[in-house]
């Protein structure tokens, strides 16, 4: 089996040690690190995402796979940075936050983990983040996408506030917003003028990629 395939398999198996040793092997063989990630580890993550969506794989397996991939990528990162041979964050910057008043950040953290293995640089503002703080940060760093989550019907109300505020400032076009969380539905996301919605972390990666490209 060629090394790229082995890398994909190691990610699917959630085998962090194997990911690290394969990454080292790739370095020794002078393979292009960016290509190795895209054609190796990422392919494995794609498979995991597909299997998660079809119900063949489960949340802890997906998290383990993402952590394993991160371990492998960490080995390759210095080479990419020193040679400037390409970017690991081709989709740009994603600002993530659990919305004002909401302490439930597990979902946001899973989205963060997955986005970080999918070509995004993540700026995680944490939980209970005020609308103004999200906007300031997103503007400051020229974010490609903003992702906010809420787990309570009482805190969801800050999502439309965020979107209205962006509209009023005239920067809504540049800063697309995606929303998610247990009480959030696709229908409601549309209603409040969000640019994207996802029901789980795999969907969030797809949505974020679609929005960042624009």
């Amino acid at each position, binding site marked *: 089996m060629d090394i790229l395939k082995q890398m994909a398999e190691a990610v699917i198996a959630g085998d962090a040690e194997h990911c690290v040793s394969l990454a080292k092997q790739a370095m020794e063989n002078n393979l292009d690190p960016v290509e190795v990630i895209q054609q190796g580890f990422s392919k494995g993550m794609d498979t995991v995402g597909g299997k998660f969506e079809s119900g063949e794989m*489960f*949340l*802890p397996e997906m*998290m383990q796979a993402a952590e394993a991939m991160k371990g492998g990528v960490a080995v390759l990162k210095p080479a990419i940075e020193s040679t400037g041979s390409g970017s690991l964050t081709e989709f740009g910057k994603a600002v993530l936050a659990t919305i004002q008043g909401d*302490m*439930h*950040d*597990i979902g946001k*953290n*899973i989205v963060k983990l997955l986005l970080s293995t999918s070509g995004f640089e993540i700026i995680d503002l944490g*939980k*209970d983040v005020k609308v103004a703080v999200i906007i300031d940060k997103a503007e400051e760093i020229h974010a490609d996408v903003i992702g906010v989550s809420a787990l*309570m*019907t*009482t*805190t*969801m*109300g800050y999502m439309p506030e965020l979107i209205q505020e962006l509209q009023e400032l005239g920067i809504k076009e540049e800063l697309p917003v995606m929303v998610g969380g*247990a*009480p959030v*539905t696709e229908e*409601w996301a549309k*209603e409040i003028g969000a640019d994207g919605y996802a029901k789980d972390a795999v969907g969030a990666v797809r949505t974020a990629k679609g929005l960042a490209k624009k």
Partner: protein
Amino acid sequence: METVLRGRSSEVRIDSQGPVVMIGEKINPTGQKKLTEALKEDNYGYVKELAERQLEHGAHVLDINVGVPGLDEVALLPRIVKRIVSDFDVPLCLDSGNPEALAAGLKEVSGKPLVNSVNGEHDRLEAVLPLVKDRQAAVIGLTMDEQGIPTDPERRLAIAEKILNRAVQLGIPKQDVVIDTLVLTVGADQNAAKVTLRTIELVRERLGVNINLGASNVSFGLPDRQTINQAFMALAIGAGANCMITDPVKLARSILACDLILGRDPYGKRYIVSTRKRLA
């Protein structure tokens, strides 16, 4: 320690030595499309159906949550409560993040309800505890605060203590505060339930109050959730939880089995009667 709840004329006792009290969780639109639609269309029939089904399966108390984005909860909660109260003689657990909605709902409820919930956040305590006190209700206190949900059992205990102290200061009897030790999914963090189990022991030992848990979160993201929910519930009940917000259709039988195993079901009567009913 006994927390007494009342319906119109019925009475339910959450007793630290007695059997587990089941609060039916299904009247809650979060993630439930059919109920969300029913509430939007003011279709009380479906709400009533959910109430009936849960009571048939052994729910002692009904949780009532009508938080749908876009609907006016302050008007809707009392309206639904009023109808439930006229149809069912069962204690209610009013569940809302909105203190105004709770205040409105409490005006329509009979007997002695449970208020779901306060947590260690200062604003929440000050907004909700006075309502509990005025209505002489009981209240669920969640072990989280401005900082979120601690991963350290001692810190969760400290929040429980803070809630209890503030309630007692305001004149709410200690036995009317039920602490919810919270559980997060072991799908995202495999130590999540262990923290909860240890918190249950600590609250039991040091505060002695009754302990509530929602037993359905623990399995999120995992296959065959029922098996995990059952195992967790048994461990939580063993550790000292004695009130469960859960789906009685799925979990009532396991709860009855726990009571029997822990010597709280003389002659196995409740378990056997429930089995017969199911087979009938």
